[in-house]
Structure formats: C-alpha cells, structure tokens
C-alpha cells in the first residue's frame, strides 16, 4: 500500500491540467497559465488525458446543461478539481488541488461511463427497429435522441449530396478556445454545414473586461498612461497569437508567445521584452508554411478585421511590435483615441467582440473543422467585453 502511494505520488508529481475558463475570468486564466508554465505541469487537450481539472472562474451551467459536471465525470481517476476565483490565489489553489489528487481517498476505483465535455458524445441510432437496412430512412422525422444523445439525420451537403448530418455543440471547454463561447454546429464528416453562436450567459462583472481595462478606465476618467495601455495591448495580441498558433498546431511558437505574454503582463521593461518578442514575431511573420496554411481561411471582404486569417495574424504581429515600442510612453491615455486590442471601446451599443461574433456563422458555413477552429482563433472574440456590458455599476459602461 505504501509502495502504491509512493508510485502514485511519483506518477502525479506533475499532473496534466485541463483548464476550463468561464467568461469574465481572464485574470484567473492568465494567473493559472503562468503558474502552470512555472511549474512545468503539462496542459491536457481534453478531459480523458487530464488529472487535475481547474476552473478559472465559477462555471455557470449553460441553460440546463451543467457542462462543468460533464467535464468532471469525463476525467479518469485519480482526479481532482479546483476552482480559481481569485487570480492572487492561483498558486495556492493549484497546490490544494495537487494535494487532493495525491490523497488516496480521492481515487474511487470504480469505472463509470462518461460523456465527453468538449463535444458530448452522440449516440447510436435508436434501436426500435424502424429501419431494417443500410438505407435507414429517417428523412421525414425530426432529429431524435437516444439516451439523451442526439442522432444524426440526412441533409444536403456542400456538393449537393444527401449525407448524414450531426448536431454538435462546440465549447466551452476546448483548448485554445475563447472563454464562454459555444457554437452549435451542424457537421457533415468534418465539414461545418451551419454554425450558430450561442454565447454563455456571462455573469455581471464587477471589474472591467481585462483586455480593454486601461481604455475603459480612461473612459471613466481615471488616470492612466498610454504606456500601460500599450503593455496591455501587446499582451492581448500575444495571447491571441499564442492561441492561434496553438490551434494551427505550432506548439513551440505558441509556448514562446505565452511566455512572452506572461513577461509582458509582469513588469518587465521594453528592453527586457524585446529579445523575447522580436525573434518570435520575425519567425512567425516569415514562416512560409504558416502563410501557405492560413492564407484564404476565413476571408472577410470588409470591416475592421477584413482579410483572411493570415492577414489578421500579421495585424497582430504589427500591433505587438508597435505596442512594444510604446511601452515606455508616459503621456496620459485619455489624449489618444480609445481603441483597445479588439477595436473601439467607447462604442456603448456594440463592443468590438460582438461584431466579431456576428461575423462567425457566415465564415464557418462550409468550412472544414480545422479551418473553423482557425477562423475562430483568428477573430478571437473576447466574451468578457459582452459581460462588462451588463455590469451594474456605470463605471464600466463608459
């Protein structure tokens, strides 16, 4: 028994962590990611490969669907879960989770049937015997469910064939995915036929959205320098860049982008950041493979984010370099136009991310799954901005 406990301890010295972020919890997510980077704990791509489930922000159920509970059941034992509600205490909470993971009581031996969280598994066709052969015809019937799992049904595909179509919710617990975004997809094979944006209900935030904080504060009349704002913008773009590269499957560059982001959000000087950021930006900008792979994906004819995924990426790279030069700027931010990392922050009617979300369904229809992920990552909407709209105190409204 002692040997067993010691083996478990050795095996779980560095647990794989699945991080599920709720909308409005960007600060907590960043704190946890930075702490994970420091400890060298690997991040799991899905619940099946995770040991420790970390919720950044209290996970709220989506309509009747308690997705957090589903993710939790999908994690194999031995497992532990913690919720980080305060960025300051991220390290402490992770320690607590690790301790729970190592306590023998925490691993029930029974195996249980589980459903996946990233996309709930959808089950077999019904077995009532209404279809006897390969040409199971259920054209006229509405999509049914068996054991709570939705069924596929036939529909026209991109090329005019009648093929099976599956209804799949995508999100909210996917790696490198905008926190709180849920897409209702209709999939044929791995081609998205239709997509609907179904953002999670965002809790009324007491603080302004993290990435547009400096500008929102300036709007509310609080003092702030444009250097601080440039630092935030640089980090925001590095965060978007890291996620985009993660989705594009370039983990090496993605890790560098995250590391640079964490240093930027710390109090590193511009001189200190340059050797971290410049080589990365240069490599990403020059990568012909990346251009070959992302050119023509998610093309928008006009608007603030016109162009394809690659041109949006280049836009971030330009923004990073520009902001990096301005980090030392001490002029008051209020003297500059109030444009945050994702667009104007002073538009009370529609925050920039709402425009980004509105562009999604048209771009996703007809895209292949991998392209759809790239499109979402290249727009990288920040749902915290929507949360801030509902904030009770007028300060964040501007």
């Amino acid at each position: 028994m002692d040997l067993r406990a010691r083996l478990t301890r050795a095996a779980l010295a560095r647990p794989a962590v699945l991080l599920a972020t709720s909308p409005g919890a960007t600060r907590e997510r960043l704190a946890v990611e930075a702490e994970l980077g420091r400890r060298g704990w690997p991040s799991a791509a899905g619940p099946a490969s995770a040991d420790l489930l970390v919720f950044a922000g209290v996970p709220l159920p989506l309509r009747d669907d308690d997705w957090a509970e589903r993710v939790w059941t999908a994690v194999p034992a031995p497992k532990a879960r913690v919720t980080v509600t305060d960025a300051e205490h991220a390290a402490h909470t992770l320690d607590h989770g690790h301790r729970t993971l190592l306590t023998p009581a925490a691993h029930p031996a029974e195996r249980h049937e589980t459903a996946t969280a990233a996309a709930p598994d959808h089950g077999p066709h019904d077995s009532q015997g209404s279809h006897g052969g390969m040409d199971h015809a259920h054209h006229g019937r509405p999509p049914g469910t068996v054991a709570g799992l939705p069924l596929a049904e036939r529909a026209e595909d991109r090329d005019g064939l009648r093929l099976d179509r599956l209804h799949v919710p995508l999100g909210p617990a996917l790696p490198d995915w905008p926190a709180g975004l849920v897409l209702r997809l209709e999939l044929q094979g791995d081609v998205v036929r239709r997509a609907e944006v179904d953002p999670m209900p965002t809790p009324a935030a007491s603080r302004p959205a993290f990435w547009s904080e400096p500008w929102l504060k300036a709007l509310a009349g609080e003092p702030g320098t444009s250097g601080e704002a440039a630092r935030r913008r640089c980090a925001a773009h590095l965060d978007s860049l890291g996620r985009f590269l993660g989705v594009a499957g370039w983990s090496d560059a993605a890790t560098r982008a995250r590391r640079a982001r964490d240093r930027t959000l710390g109090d590193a000087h511009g001189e200190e950041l340059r050797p971290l950021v410049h080589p990365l930006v240069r490599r990403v900008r020059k990568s012909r493979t990346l251009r070959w792979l992302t050119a023509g994906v998610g093309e928008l004819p006009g608007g603030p984010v016109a162009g394809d995924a690659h041109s949006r990426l280049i836009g971030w790279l330009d923004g990073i370099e520009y902001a990096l030069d301005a980090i030392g700027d001490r002029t008051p931010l209020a003297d500059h136009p109030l444009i945050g990392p994702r667009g104007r922050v002073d538009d009370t009617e529609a925050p920039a991310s709402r425009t980004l979300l509105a562009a999604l369904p048209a771009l996703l229809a007809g895209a292949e799954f991998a392209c759809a992920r790239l499109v979402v990552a290249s727009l990288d909407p920040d749902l915290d901005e929507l949360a801030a709209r509902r904030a009770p105190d007028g300060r964040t409204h501007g």
Partner: protein
Amino acid sequence: MAEPAPPWAALVLPLALALVATALATADARSTGPGREVLRLLVQQRRITRAADVPLVRLATTLLPVAAVLAAAVLPLGFRPVSDLPDGIVWFNAMEALAWAAVWLAGWGPNSTLSLIGGYRFLAQGLAYELPHMLAITTAALGAQSLRVGAVADAQAGLWFAVWMPAAFGIYLLSALAMAFWGPFDQPVGRDTAGGAAAELSGVDRLVFLGGRRLLLVVAAAFSVPLFLGGGHGPLLPGWAWTLIKTAAVLGLLLWVRRRVPTVRTERYMELSWVVLTPLAVAQALVVAVVVLKK
C-alpha cells in the same frame, strides 16, 4: 547478401524499438520525462465513453504498436534483419497501412465527435501521402532491382540513393512523418480537436496507442536508412553502429521539423501531394529506370 538474425532477435526487436522510442521521448521531453509520463498513464483509470464500441477501441490501440513491430521485422540492424523477406519493401508498406485501420478504429470506437474527426482526418491524410510514398519506395527498389531490403542496402555500398534520388528521399521523409501522424502531420491527434483520435483514450489505452505511434515513427525513420542512406555501410565503424547513427540523425531531423513547422492540414497537403509530389515521384522513378537500364 544479408544473413538473417538468430531467432531470439524477434524477441529483442520490440524491446530495442521501445528503447529507441524512449530515447526519442527523452530528447523531445517538454515538461515531463517519458518515465513519469508512462507511470502517470499506468495509474490512470481506463475510461469508457457512453455507447462506445469497446472491443473495437481495444483492438485499435493494440493494433498500432503491433503493426509497427511487424513492419520493423524487415529492418536490418547493420546487415541483419529479423527476417529478410524477399518482398520486404511491400511488407513494410502493408504493415504501415494497418496503422490506417488502427487509427480509424480508435477514432470511431469511442462514439465521440472529436475523436471521429481525428480518425477521419487520418484517412484523408493517408490518401494524400500514400501515392507519392509508394512511388518513392518503389523507386528505391527499382534502383536496387530488388524488393529485398537487404539487397537495397547492399546496392548502396558506393553511392547512397539519397544522393541520386533526392526527390524520392524527400518524399519518403514527408510520408514517414505523415504515417506516424507526427510533427507537422499530427492533425489526426491535433490539439484543435482536443486530441483527435486519441481524445477519448486514457490510462493504459492511451499509453499503448501513443507509444505505438512513437514506435511507428522510429520504424519509419529507421526504414529510410536501408532504403536511401546506405544501410549499415560506412567507414571504420561496424554496420550496426552506422545504422543507429543514421537513424538517430533522421529522427533528429524529424524532431527539428516538428518544432519549426505548424500542422499541415490535409486539404492543403492533398493538392500538393497529388498535383506536385506524385508527378515528381513518377519523374524520379523514370530517371532511375533509365539509369538502371543503361547500366
């Protein structure tokens, strides 16, 4: 002429492959060492999803390492393979195709959309890489006028095939990455699908599947040595040492490529593969055929 290795070599082969794969994992270590990762997966519970086809999943996960080890049976260490089949090259190709079935089943079995997409992607990737890949290994066989792996290595006692068949060699390296769904060709187990074909595997299943993938990568890289890099031929050192050094060099190259290049998506690679690489491979085979006929 290659002499077959003693029978006990068949038992040593999987161990030797696992050893190289572990060394590879150590060189590639990101945060956790391979030993700890193996231990972590061993203490982890095996998990099943709702309405999964469990026998198919179990079959799929075990098939992958089995296919890799079977493919390695024709690999000469120095000049001695476990079995020097007269059609070794076709055998390697056939065993590597078994991986298609394995990955596809691993994606289909758990009854989950993301893993299904992963399995589906591997089939698309297979269709993209297989055509030029077959032509490339056929070119090597053509150059040696034999399908026997030992004979192909022997034909390169002087000039390596990689030198005068560079296109075939390059195509082979690409398809070695693609068949082990590794590095830039890791779309079937990509992070964007939360792990793709391996998304629902945990514990021992995950260990066997991902370990099998590493074995497959080692075997695919090692096979380029007798095919294009002169096998065990080289000055001073014995044949087995040269085989190991060359294999390590190829593996190092493949690891480096993985760091430098993002994931290649099949819809882009497919067109490149069929419109550019396949004609290139045919042209390379034609050149080699003319050279061989002139001799």
